[in-house]
């Protein structure tokens, strides 16, 4: 170590408190904009990539931000439903492939995404174990869900009850795990996938129970020639098994079974444009382009970004002033030390070099700390996009 570097190091070490405070201030001033910038870049890429991969979302008229965030990130929201017959009607038009989505339920806090096999094909989800959920009462887990809950194919997963003390509401459904998907690095990793029919069981629109003639008479409210009225306390099957699967049935018009949204995958950009225009012109549904919605969302909050840029700049400026003042005062306190160096024949620039080197050391250590803190933040901060 050269003499001047050694002297700078010893001086910094001799004034630990002052040096530590300086390093902390500088590191903090660097950490905030670095982390914000890295996070911004990461979320920018993630948000836009997910949106860009999804050509069109169709749903009931209402808040298009809710619709988009629910369809892309499974964000819980009270969307108006779309009857299943709309999917069939749109499919008849031949402009696109339509994928049903139903997202009103959770299983141990994870969103249950009820859809069809086209969704997993579209998102490129590949089973790491088992297979897709193709049967009533089956689920396939995103990689993160499987890891967190420690579940494998063949295990069971209970849905979260919606109305704990209302016996007329469907009970929690015990669902069989049919497969686990490979990690995709998208919100799909945190979801539980099943067929839309399973969601209708969770809704209570479809259910299975013992045949009407075998029901306990205490649960029969009335028997007419053409119908049997049964108490809401009748226990429905809480699990779909090979034995009772055949008893599951729908009530009401199956064409009106509810969906939360539809993903539309047009064959061409032209088909997509025609489809979007036709849907929005008809008025009973709305079609949105996710990239437009995300851009609008970002545009609305752009002013907040400018504010954060200003705060970051102010923080850096005040910290730079603080460092300057500290070293200025330090140089005055070290006047005697400088005179000694001068008397023993050291060149005049050595004094300035000592202070400069000490400042560089502080900046280097602070930079390293800020870099480590930024990396740790990015590593440990929850994935806000997937849990949005």
């Amino acid at each position, binding site marked *: 170590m050269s003499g001047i570097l050694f002297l700078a190091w010893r001086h910094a070490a001799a004034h630990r408190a002052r040096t530590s405070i300086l390093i902390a201030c500088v590191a903090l001033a660097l950490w905030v904009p670095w982390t*914000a910038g890295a996070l911004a870049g990461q979320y*920018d890429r993630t948000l836009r990539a997910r949106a860009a991969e999804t050509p069109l979302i169709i749903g009931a008229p209402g808040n298009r931000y809710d619709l988009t965030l629910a369809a892309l990130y499974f964000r819980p929201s009270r969307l108006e439903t779309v009857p299943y017959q709309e999917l069939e009607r749109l499919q008849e038009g031949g402009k696109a492939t339509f994928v049903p989505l139903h997202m009103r339920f959770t299983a141990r806090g994870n969103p249950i995404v009820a859809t*069809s096999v086209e969704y997993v094909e*579209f998102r490129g989800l590949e089973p790491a174990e088992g297979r897709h959920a193709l049967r009533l009462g089956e689920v396939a887990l995103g990689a993160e869900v499987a890891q967190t809950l420690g579940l494998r194919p063949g295990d069971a997963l209970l849905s979260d009850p919606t109305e704990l003390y209302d016996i007329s509401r469907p009970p929690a459904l015990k669902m069989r795990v049919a497969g686990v998907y490979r990690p995709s690095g998208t919100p799909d990793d945190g979801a539980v996938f099943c067929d839309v029919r399973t969601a209708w069981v969770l809704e209570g629109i479809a259910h299975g129970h013992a045949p009407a*003639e075998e029901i306990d008479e205490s649960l029969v409210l009335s028997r007419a020639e053409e119908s049997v009225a049964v108490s809401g306390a009748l226990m429905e099957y809480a699990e779909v098994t090979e034995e009772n699967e*055949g008893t599951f049935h729908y009530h009401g018009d199956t064409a009106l079974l509810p969906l939360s949204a539809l993903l539309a995958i047009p064959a061409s950009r032209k088909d997509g444009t025609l489809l979007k225009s036709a849907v929005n012109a008809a008025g009973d549904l709305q079609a949105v382009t996710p*990239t437009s919605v995300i851009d609008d969302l970002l545009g609305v909050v752009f002013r907040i970004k400018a504010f954060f840029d200003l705060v970051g700049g102010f923080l850096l400026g005040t910290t730079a002033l603080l460092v300057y003042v500290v070293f200025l005062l330090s140089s005055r306190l070290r006047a005697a030390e400088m005179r000694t160096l001068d008397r023993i024949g050291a060149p005049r620039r050595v004094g300035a070099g000592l202070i400069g080197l000490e400042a560089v050391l502080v900046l280097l250590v602070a930079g390293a700390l800020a870099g480590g803190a930024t990396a740790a933040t990015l590593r440990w901060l929850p994935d806000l996009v997937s849990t949005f």
Partner: protein
Amino acid sequence: MGTVRTLLLSTAIALCGCSDQLAGTEGAHGTTPLRSVVAVTSGPAELLAAAAVGQARVERVAPSGIPLDRWRPDDGALDAMVSARRVLVLGDEGEPWLQRAGLPPSRTARLEAAVPVERWIEVGSFTHTHGGGESHTHGGVVVETWTDPDLLRAMARRSAVQLRSALEGGGAAPPPGGLDGRIDAYAAELTALAAALDGRALIATHHGMEYLCRWAGIRLEVTELELEGSGAPPNDAAVRELAELAGQEGAQAGVLVWPGRLDPTFAEMAQQELGLRSVDFDLGGTLSDRDTLTRLTQSVARLRAAIAPE
């Protein structure tokens, strides 16, 4: 916690700004290869798929002879259907397993969609008993729509468009007009049956003949014995009704038509005690070594021969 996350994400979004231009909206389908076949589980679907794209590109995924309302696809059958470019099915009414299996909607073609709502035949609910057992109720729509020549033609037109567009360029087109000619022959056979009946009613054990009888103008009396090959005694009320119908000589054709499984014991009893000759009638719903139209046409011819004056 949720509020904090929302705040953090809003902050992140705010920091992102909106520098990027709109990305393209073209989506990419998954890379899962689909097989250029039409998967079928019923006789009518096989008939119409073969007529549309050729028999070589039709794949059976259900075993022969199993009634459509009792079949449950195993994992292999489900995988076969999901990986086929198209699945041609009757619909939820005709194939109840569809209510419990997740077929891809965009690749599943339903023959029931070709049937206008007003053309469906509903049979009213009725209360009855099995022997001395508890009374219970049945009812619903009759699913054998393909037995009506006009509806079969409508299904053929619809499925041809759907299947050919999905499998275009994948093989030789079937001979034009072949199916139409065969439907004409079946319709002619039905017309001949109606003429042979000369206003007399047919007595059947199942509602499955409702559509063909309506098309041909044949009066149909249905008495559901519900024997189902289980060895259980027949429905008492149905037997009484059958006896009443059999007693109306001249108003009915003197035959008991079995569109479902023929019960030899009851058939013999009906012959001896009620004077009704039993005739098996294959509605062609299940998969078989002979196609649906052949079985239907032969069944009508057999029935016509049975009611011909001796």
